[in-house]
């Protein structure tokens, strides 16, 4: 008896909402990046659940691409965090309110 697909959707929705709330509420840039990873993982849960439900393999293949995008996003996001910290000595995102361009 397989696990119902609804359960994956509920789990994914809860994780997604927690991640979205974390992105909106927290000031620390690192916590915002963690929340972004949570959002991407919620999508992965959804894809795997539907791949099992539809008895298809492409859903599982898509998770690999989401992981590749997550790795790219983590690398660039951490590089930006490093540069921001080096130049402004803070990582609180509401303090980055002036542009110099």
């Amino acid at each position, binding site marked *: 008896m397989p*696990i119902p697909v609804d359960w994956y959707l509920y789990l994914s929705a809860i994780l997604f909402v927690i991640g979205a709330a974390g992105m909106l509420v927290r000031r*620390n840039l690192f916590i915002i990046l963690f929340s972004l990873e949570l959002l991407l993982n919620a999508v*992965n849960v959804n894809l795997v659940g539907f791949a099992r439900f539809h008895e298809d393999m492409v859903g599982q293949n898509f998770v690999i691409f989401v992981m590749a995008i997550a790795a790219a996003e983590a690398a660039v996001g951490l590089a930006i965090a490093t540069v921001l910290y080096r130049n402004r000595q803070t990582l609180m995102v509401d303090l980055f309110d002036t542009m110099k361009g």
Partner: protein
Amino acid sequence: MTAKVLFVIFAFLAVVGALGTVTRRNIVHGLLLLVFTFLNIAVIFFLTEAYFLAVVQVLVYAGAIMVLFVFVITLLDLRSFEKEPQTHRRQRWVAVVLSALVLAEFVAVLAGLTFTSARAGFTPEAISAAGGNSRVFGEVLFNHLLLPFEVASVVLLVAMVGAIVLVKREKTAGGMTRHWELGEELPSGVLEEEV
């Protein structure tokens, strides 16, 4: 039945870890709870018989990407941020209420939906008869999704080059690496001297 019980247990643990991640004041604690969440999601992949993805989740996500975060956190002095307010002053309650509303919407929509399986033929029995999850996974990936696979490699290359370019310290005209002390203002005209 066992799978359902295990799913509920590990889904609960994943949600607890996710809640801890977004509420911790200490960034390293948040990161460890995030790794905990990823490990629980790996178990859920395992219960879904996506064995290859479960291993990749542990190795790549909980291993590589999170270690990258740990390295950057150790390079920066982040303890001083724990004394500051951790949430946006005006928008936090709005954000929490909106998130709860979105979750209620998700639940309301999902409660009224029934899905019909497309039955594309990759049943667990068919997969194990064809040589296992990893083999079928690779065959589908390299037969049907080869172009997206190559594009993903280009995306990773661009991200790598971009990360290196972003964090590289510019050389001054004399060829010496320029060091910035904490709190130091950039000397004026230094940008024009770069080679």
